[in-house]
């Protein structure tokens, strides 16, 4: 024995991590855990996928937005799915990829942050949260190899730096910080193209909302899997705003107004 038993308290870093607690107490609840491996060469399952989510920085923080559709191949699986989740008071997670595992990961991540906050008595830094999410995506790697890819984007307000920041991930858990904007999912490329043209540094809240919504409409235009605003059914993109004072939903009327404005502009073209 290298260390005597009182030293244990110093080496047990995992005591404030919920995911590590689950690994010890109930590993079957962890993402990436499988009782039986799928046989090699089996067809990947047709399951719902979340499509387009985006995040962009603006003057007071970050805006996250996502369309509301989940697609299963060429079929619409859900029309009103929510893809942007509050992870704590100052950050949010936007999920893209296999919807089931992605939502499970978002829930685990929320619990992880809250657990840390309660046990330690203070919040994780934004950097710490982003790293933690990367580790969770890496846990999911075995499932990603079978086609259940989860690639969220993470954005939040960094209290220490006093700015909004956003992060993208790859399937191996690689974490990359973006300085201005990013979009992920099947319509991610189209949304990025749109953001590239429209994005300006230090936009006002109103401008940033319009740019975000326009990017989603562009993605829905070009990508089969992404759902556009459905004004008849009243299905609007979900738009969240994260600033120093917290995480909030952009009001429906405002989102509807911007959707209509963008679509009216298109009509005249």
């Amino acid at each position: 024995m290298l260390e005597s038993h009182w030293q244990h308290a110093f080496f047990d870093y995992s005591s404030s991590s919920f995911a590590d607690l689950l690994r010890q107490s109930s590993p079957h609840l962890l993402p990436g855990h499988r009782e039986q491996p799928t046989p090699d060469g089996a067809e990947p399952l047709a399951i719902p996928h979340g499509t387009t989510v985006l995040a962009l920085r603006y003057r007071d923080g970050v805006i996250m937005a996502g369309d509301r559709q989940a697609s299963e191949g060429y079929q619409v699986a859900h029309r009103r799915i929510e893809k942007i989740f509050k992870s704590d008071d100052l950050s949010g997670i936007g999920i893209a990829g296999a919807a089931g595992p992605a939502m499970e990961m978002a829930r685990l991540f929320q619990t992880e942050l809250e657990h840390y906050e309660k046990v330690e008595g203070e919040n994780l830094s934004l950097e710490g949260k982003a790293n933690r999410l990367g580790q969770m995506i890496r846990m999911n790697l075995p499932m990603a190899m079978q086609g259940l890819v989860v690639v969220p984007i993470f954005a939040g307000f960094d209290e220490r730096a006093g700015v909004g920041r956003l992060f993208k991930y790859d399937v191996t858990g690689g974490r990359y910080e973006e300085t201005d904007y990013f979009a992920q999912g099947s319509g991610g490329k189209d949304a990025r193209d749109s953001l590239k043209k429209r994005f300006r540094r230090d936009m006002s809240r109103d401008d940033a909302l319009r740019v975000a919504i326009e990017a989603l409409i562009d993605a829905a235009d070009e990508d089969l899997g992404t759902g556009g605003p459905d004004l008849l059914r009243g299905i609007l993109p979900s738009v969240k705003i994260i600033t120093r004072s917290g995480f909030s939903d952009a009001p429906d009327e405002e989102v509807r107004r911007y959707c209509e404005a963008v679509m009216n502009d298109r009509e005249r073209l």
Partner: protein
Amino acid sequence: MPLPYYVSPEQIMKDKAEYARKGISRGKAIVAIEYRDGVLLVAENPSTLLHKISEIYDRIAFAGVGKYNEFENLRVAGVRHADVKGYSYSRGDVSAKALANAYSQALGNIFTQDIKPFEVEVLVVEVSDVNGSKNEIYHILYDGTIEDEKNYAAMGGQSDEIRRYLKDNYQEGLDFAAALTLGVRALMVTQNKALTERDLEVAVLDRSKERRKFRRIPPEVLHQLLSNLK
């Protein structure tokens, strides 16, 4: 080999209980008071960093008196219990009753099996939903004894006197300010100086809050509230 001395089990338990009680009575007291919008917790605690009152889950709070490292261990165990349960079922399935039972089991086992009992008492408090159910206050003692209390609870040093004061002065339907006055006055019963915001740790389970009902009252706000009382 010398034979160990025989000590009767009765004597062992008595000694342990006396030992634990002595440790607890040296500590400072905590009171919990039900008020109109939830439950108020007031502790005498000069430290602003080492808490005696903490959040466990959405509607559940924890308070401990006695040895810090011991009730801190219990608190973290409680957070773990609640988070795992809430994650595997749903947030609404986490209850103070199950948690209080777990504390009671743990403290009971430690008391009978370990050489040294925990010198702690804990309160587990759950604020009711809006739909008319009752608040729950569980008081768990060093030997695993569990009691459910109504309207108010007190524990720690000289808690009998404090409880008597609360019994004489408590009324139903207090507003926040009145509950705070009552709590602070109750803690002052056993001392001859006035308590200020520097000596107190105050938190509430506030029914009107969204999801996580636990809220600490920061010292500046407390200062304001206490100066209004005078």
